[in-house]
Every structure is written in structure tokens, then in C-alpha cells.
């Protein structure tokens, strides 16, 4: 099995994110591997462990994104590639999916691609489906379980977690899978893995390297990013001599305020 896992570097979810001079800032908080992508890396590694093969981590981003790729390597990926080009500085999902699909085409011979369901920064959550569409491969999004994988017969059966229940879907490989948190518990990088990651050379592919003669620009514009207005709430503490009295007072207040 030739497995690819697409990842992104993001700001840590514990960070306080602010806007300074129109630019998004997370202060000194270090950048991390997008938390959703940890599940994708883990599933790629488990697939390899069960069926053999190679796992390649791929990211599109600036040079710093190599740190996220190193984390994927430290978890156990065999190799990593960074797609990077000044042309991708202003990117959106349409352009990103084009670049990732082109990189996958360049690699050739990929059986299965994993993504996290979304990223914790811009939360667009459409890249996996868009990459699948560009490659004309089946899109298996929001997968909570890979029930069956048959590398020889080139088929996969998964459970997709939709709002109204789990849909069981079967298709032929190659396919693009986006995973949800329920699918597994990501491993921590091992000491050996970290040492190996620090020594692994991560090749850089430019737009031209992946065969994009016409570099796709973003079709979205972002005229403004702002902090939501601070809601000044003063918490009204409900007190009373007994839980029942507190509960009655609380219900009274919620009815008065027309919440209920």
C-alpha cells in the first residue's frame, strides 16, 4: 500500500489568538501539527502496520511547515514532502486542492490518501473532498472506522459519521479519506522517531515541480479579520438555602428573561 497523508501546520488550540495591525497573531505560542491531522497520520500508520507499504506525509505551506512534517515523521511516517512556492502564499481551498492533487499525480501509484476532517485555524473542511474531485477518486469523508481494507482486491469499506447516523460505504481504491476523532487514538512520537525525523531530508516541491504551469491564485478575498466584540457579561449568582430553592430561583430568572 502506498499511503499519503495530507497535513497542515496550525496555531495551537490553547493559544489566545488576536489581530494586530490586520495580521493574525498567537504571540509566542508554537505552531503545531493540526490536531485533526494527528488522527489522519495515526490511521495511515495503522494501515501500513496492518497491510505493509509506505506512508508519505505531504504539506503545502511555508518553510516552517517542515516542523509539522517532522512531527508526522516522528510519529512514524517513512518520508515527507513540502509543497512550497511564493505563489501559494495567498491560497484558498480551490488553489490548495489543485496543488495537492497535482502533487499526488506527480507521486503516482498512491492507493489511499488520508486527511483530518478540517483544520482548527480556518475550519473550511473541504480540502479532502476537493482533492478527491480533482483526481476523480471516491471521496470518503468524516470516516469514523475503516471496517475492511483489501489491498489485493483494491477495495475499502468505511463508516462515515454523518449528523443522522453512520453511513457504511464501500468503494474501489484509490480513494481519499477524511477522518474524525473517533477513528483512533493518535500515538505520541517516540524518542527514536524524533531522532529519525531530525535527520530526514524533506524535499521541497515548487509549483513548477508538480507540473502547474499556471499557478492558481486565491479566488477568495479576506478584506477584514477582527476579534468578535467582547461581550461584557456579569454573572448573576443564584443563591439559596437549599438546592430546591436555588433551582426554583434559577427557573424563575430564566422564565423572566424569556430564555425558556
Amino acid at each position, binding site marked *: 500500500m502506498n499511503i499519503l497523508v495530507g497535513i497542515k501546520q496550525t496555531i495551537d488550540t490553547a493559544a489566545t489568538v488576536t489581530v494586530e495591525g490586520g495580521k493574525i497573531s498567537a504571540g509566542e505560542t508554537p505552531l503545531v501539527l493540526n490536531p485533526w491531522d494527528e488522527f489522519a497520520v495515526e490511521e495511515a500508520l495503522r494501515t501500513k502496520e496492518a497491510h505493509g507499504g509506505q506512508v508519505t506525509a505531504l504539506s503545502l505551506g511555508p518553510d516552517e511547515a517542515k516542523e509539522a512534517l517532522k512531527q508526522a515523521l516522528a510519529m512514524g511516517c517513512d518520508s515527507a514532502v513540502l509543497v512550497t512556492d511564493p505563489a501559494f502564499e495567498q491560497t484558498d481551498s480551490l488553489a490548495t486542492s489543485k496543488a495537492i492533487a497535482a502533487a499526488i499525480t506527480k507521486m503516482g501509484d498512491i492507493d489511499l490518501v488520508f486527511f483530518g476532517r478540517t483544520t482548527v485555524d480556518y*475550519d*473550511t473542511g473541504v480540502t479532502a473532498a476537493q482533492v478527491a474531485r480533482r483526481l476523480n477518486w471516491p*471521496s470518503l469523508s468524516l470516516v469514523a472506522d475503516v471496517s475492511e481494507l483489501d489491498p489485493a482486491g483494491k477495495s475499502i469499506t468505511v463508516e462515515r459519521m454523518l449528523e443522522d447516523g453512520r453511513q457504511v460505504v464501500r468503494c474501489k481504491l484509490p480513494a481519499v479519506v477524511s477522518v474524525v476523532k473517533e477513528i483512533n487514538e493518535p500515538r505520541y512520537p517516540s524518542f527514536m522517531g524524533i531522532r529519525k525525523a531530525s535527520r530526514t531530508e524533506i524535499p521541497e516541491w515548487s509549483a513548477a515541480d508538480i507540473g502547474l504551469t499556471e499557478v492558481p491564485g486565491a*479566488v477568495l478575498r479576506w478584506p477584514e479579520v477582527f476579534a468578535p466584540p467582547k461581550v461584557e457579561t456579569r454573572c448573576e449568582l443564584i443563591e439559596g438555602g437549599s438546592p430546591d430553592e436555588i433551582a426554583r430561583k434559577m427557573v424563575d430568572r430564566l422564565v423572566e428573561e424569556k430564555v425558556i
Partner: protein
Amino acid sequence: MAGDVFVYIDHFGGQAPLSSWEAVGAGVQLAQAGSGKVTAVVFGDGVEGLAQTAISFGADEALLADSASLKDYSPERFAGALSGLVKQASPDVLLFPTSGRTRELAGMVAVDLETGIIPDIVEFEMKDGAVLATRPIYAGKLMARVLIPDRRPQILTIRTRAFPMPAADSEKSGTVTRVDLPEVQALSEVVGYKEAGGGVSLTDAGIIVSGGRGVSNNPKASPPADVTDPKEQEIWRARQGFALIGELAQVLGGAVGASRAAVDSGYVPYSHQVGQTGRVVSPDLYIACGISGAIQHLAGMRTSKTIVAINKDSDAPIFKLAQFGVVGDLYDVVPALTKAFRERLS
């Protein structure tokens, strides 16, 4: 046509979430701004009723593809069909409610039509003939205004409960046009369904009662003798607490939520998780029980209209966001609330 809006009606087996009708309402607002018309698009099996409902909620007309072969949502078939219809009619805007299905579908149609997609919007205005949409980023820690200046259609998905539910007018008439979809090869096959959703879904819920790590902190309940492992004892205690939370949610017709700490500790399944790596929700009432309020959790529920916090620790950050608070033991307060609401609502 310029100014026209297509609204895709998301549904599961003919049951549409309320957000589909909120999308029709938002579509009507957009069409009025651009002097265009609203066309609802319905794919499925035995779903003519949904086309009529869309018209009663304000759509001017509906395109209906109704056949047994469309019973199950299939990304490639639905995307191919929708892209085809949109190409023919050239609307300015293609609008979706936000769900797992529609993010996939909208993303694929955007690729087919080489246009932009702005998911999960909470507000919009018109600017120089384009929709200037507002959407949360970093799970609501920041907001971004986004637009698609040059490509059409502009593809948008609207966040559930961010737009008002339109009023239904059963007298309103509109043409339902049946369309035959081209035979597009489905690339995957639906084998079946498991765990069909029970209870109220988190994103649709008007009221959410949530539990955190504090739910396991119940010294009064003692686990059965055969539960000896400390971790299992903790989970056993927490489940007693979540049972109380579930009763309160049931009395209020709401859904049960949880913090990441509660999910990671194995108290409840992940599908209940509210927060930056769970669901982002904005109910009318959010009752947080034994949740201290980590920044990731607050990001997922801060837009709730009214927040009630119940926590033993009066310094818990959740009280900074809550309108009403009780400093006390959820094991005392939650059952008392259930009783008080039951009396009041009966």
C-alpha cells in the same frame, strides 16, 4: 441569471434539518438584495414534499429530481447533477445549510465550477455586487469577512441557527419542475446505516446541557463491588452524573453535550463533544455542569444566547462567560433543576 440564488435542500431520507429552511430564508434575503429569484434544489426519493415546503418558506420555485436511484446521498452523483443544473441556470449564489454532507458536496461543486466556497457563514451583506460574508475562524476566537469578487456562483454554506427560521406560508405557490439527472457514475456504494441518530442533534439543539470532568467528582455514589479499577470507578461515577444531565436535557427537550476532558476520560462518546475539536454550537440556552471552561471549550459555545454555569469552584473561567451561575455541587443542583423545570413546564 444575475441576482438569482440556488438553495440546496439537505435531508436524510426525506427529513430535512431546520437549517435547510434557514438557508431558504437567507436565500430570500440575498435574492431580494440582487432582485433575483430563489430556486430550491431537492434530490432524493419521494421528496416532492420537501420541494413544496421550500416554496412555503419563501423559494420562488423548485427543481426536483425524485427517483429511487437517488435514495442514498452519493457525493459524486449529487455533485455532478448539481453542477450541471447550476451551469445551465448560472445563479449568482449557491447556498447550502452546513452539514457533513453539504461541506463535501459544496466543495466538489466548487471544483467543478472553478469557483470559491465560503463555508459556515453567520452573517452577510452585499458589497459591490458580491456577498461579503462573515464567518468564525479559530473556532470563533476571531471573525473573518470573506468574499468572492470575480467567480460565479459564489458558494456559501450557512451555519445552523445563525439565520432566522423563515415563517411558513402554506398558501404561497411556485412551480416545481421535475428534472432528470444525467447518469453520473457513483464512485462509492452505500452498503447500509448504523446507529441511526437518536435524540436531539447537538448542532440543531435549542438547549444543551453539558458535563465536564467535574461530573466524575461524586463521592456519595459508590460503585458496585466488582468495579475495582480506579479508572473504571471514575467512569462509573461520571456515568451516574451524565444520567442526571441527560434527565435535565430530556425535560428541556435539549441535547447532551460534553467537554473534551469528559470525552477523553471515556465518560461519553465523542459525538457529544463541544469545543474547538468537537462541535461548535450556539443554542438559546447552554447549561454547563462541572465544566471549568478551557479556552477550547469556550470557543465552541461562546455564541450561545444564554449560558448557565454550575460549578463548585467559584473561580472557574466559565463564570466569566455565564449570565447565570450557581456555585455548588452539580449532584445537588442538577436534579433540583430537573424537578423545578418539570413542575414549571408541565
